[in-house]
């Protein structure tokens, strides 16, 4: 190892780099273009969320938790809301559960489109980002109509959701899903079946299936190795136990397998959303009234909740102390282990050309690593 590192040059892949997934950096020791050692550096986006949350009441903290992961804020809101509900024993109505499930699946679709842009951009296929980011925008329009926010929704409040569905929303969602189904065929032809994407992605960034379980790799990394696990099925929350969907798996464990898993998950999300549109109850409370909003107290207890985000299981640990403030909220997103333990391992002996592609396929989101 020491001898290998003797003649290397050290470069920083990021934080100012077009090929990095957000504001982070990977320190690479290169021999030619082969990477001999990789080390991840984060902290460029550290805001101290966990400290900020400790200084705020539940209602105040609710507005900032969605900022924890920028590309997909909704799993954060869901986790936060569910943790508070677990601690205080709030029950939410069936309609609110359906709406929350719907928002989560919509967010999953939107994130997948953004990922597709990044993944195609990392191999220089400039056409796909242009299309897919635009397609994602149509979903953001629906979000805006539903919640009032394009990116940050602040929607899943402890005890339900903040607002009822607008009139005719479900039919508009249904139209968009029709459009997406057509588009996914186009993407399949231009991107997933693209000969150059196949040539570059197959056999690159192979994750060992034995490591997956022990090292707590989650999401598409796990399912790309043929392990059929998903929080939505294993520890069902909201309405997922009443919905019919599959968990797509691939067995190769490389970048291409993860891409295919994501493509199939998009189709599954569309399937779930169609069921929700059909089953959505027309009547029902959307938000359970919390007595004394400002003096809403959390009991001295702790809980741990998990949600399947678009990149894997995202967990929150939350503890109250009998006062209005939250004693401790710790976020454990999928990126933490992926960006450190996994990425540092995968990049060794790969090429510089593979760095951006590998990072994108792991779904690394820097703001969630360091909060």
């Amino acid at each position, binding site marked *: 190892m020491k001898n290998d590192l003797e003649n290397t040059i050290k470069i920083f892949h990021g934080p100012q780099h077009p090929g990095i997934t957000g504001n982070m950096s990977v320190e690479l020791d290169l021999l030619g273009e082969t990477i001999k050692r990789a080390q991840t550096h984060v902290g460029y986006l550290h805001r101290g969320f966990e400290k900020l949350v*400790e200084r705020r009441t539940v209602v105040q903290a609710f507005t900032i938790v969605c900022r924890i992961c920028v590309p997909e804020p909704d799993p954060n809101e869901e986790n936060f809301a569910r943790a508070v509900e677990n601690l205080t024993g709030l029950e939410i109505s069936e309609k609110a559960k359906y709406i929350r499930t719907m928002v989560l699946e919509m967010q999953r679709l939107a994130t997948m489109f953004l990922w597709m842009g990044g993944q195609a951009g990392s191999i220089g296929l400039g056409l796909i980002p242009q299309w897919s980011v635009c397609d994602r925008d149509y979903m953001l329009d629906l979000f805006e109509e539903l919640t009032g926010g394009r990116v940050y929704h602040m929607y899943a409040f402890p005890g339900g959701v903040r607002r009822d569905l607008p009139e005719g929303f479900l039919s508009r969602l249904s139209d968009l899903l029709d459009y997406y189904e057509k588009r996914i065929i186009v993407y399949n032809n231009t991107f997933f079946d693209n000969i150059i994407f196949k040539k570059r992605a197959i056999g690159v960034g192979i994750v060992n299936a034995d490591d997956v*379980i022990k090292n707590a790799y989650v999401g598409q990394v796990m399912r790309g190795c043929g392990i059929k696990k998903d929080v939505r099925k294993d520890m069902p929350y909201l309405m997922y136990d009443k919905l019919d969907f599959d968990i797509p798996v691939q067995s190769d464990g490389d970048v291409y397998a993860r891409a295919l898993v994501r493509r199939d998950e998009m189709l599954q999300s569309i399937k779930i959303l169609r069921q929700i549109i059909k089953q959505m109850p027309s009547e029902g409370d959307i938000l359970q009234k919390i007595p004394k909003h400002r003096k809403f107290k959390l009991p001295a207890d*702790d809980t741990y909740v998990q949600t399947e985000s678009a990149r894997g299981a995202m967990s929150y640990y939350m503890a109250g102390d009998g006062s209005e403030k939250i004693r401790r909220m710790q976020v454990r997103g999928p990126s933490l282990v992926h960006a450190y333990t996994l990425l540092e391992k995968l990049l060794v002996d790969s090429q510089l050309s593979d760095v951006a592609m590998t990072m994108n396929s792991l779904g690394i989101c820097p703001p969630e690593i360091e909060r």
Partner: protein
Amino acid sequence: MIELISKLEKLSLELVQKQDYLYKVEVKKEQLESLLLSFLNEFGYITLDSINCRDDLEEGNFVITYCLLTPKRDHVVMVQTSIERENASLPSIHTFWPQAEIMEREMHEMFGVDFPGHPTLIDFALEYWDNIPPLRRDFDTLQYVNDMNPFRGQRDDALDAKVEMKKKREAKKAAKLKAEQEAAAKAELETQNNPSQEVQNEE
């Protein structure tokens, strides 16, 4: 699950069910490493999902929670222990779980917990930090911010929000009162002028 309860009872530990998929077991610090090892090797909880730390300043200890999963991933077991706040240190478990390395590094930086035997206790998110570890509750972030990074001053023509709010509220109240009085007076006047109005409206 019953199997696990009986196994833990042998070690005189109690498994508490917290939620549908959530169990918790509390141990002493001395027992922690051996218990985690037996969770890994004997009970089949081979996934370490996260290590969480909580600062109980009033009791003077840190509460550390290890969240473990089986390969089935259908429930979470929280192994909880509390350690002294002063000179806090824990055995490092990065040899059992590689991902613990980064989690412990983060905990070291944010809480100042020491991990003897940990290979890379370097900076995680902060850079050149020389204050109390920031997530300890005796670190006052507002004080720190005011020292480092003062607020933007107001404009010269800015108004005091509290006074303005009060004024607005009073004005609103006065306006409401006035409107009510006017409405009452008007109604009274109308009923006096044409008493047949109500009948007409009903038609």
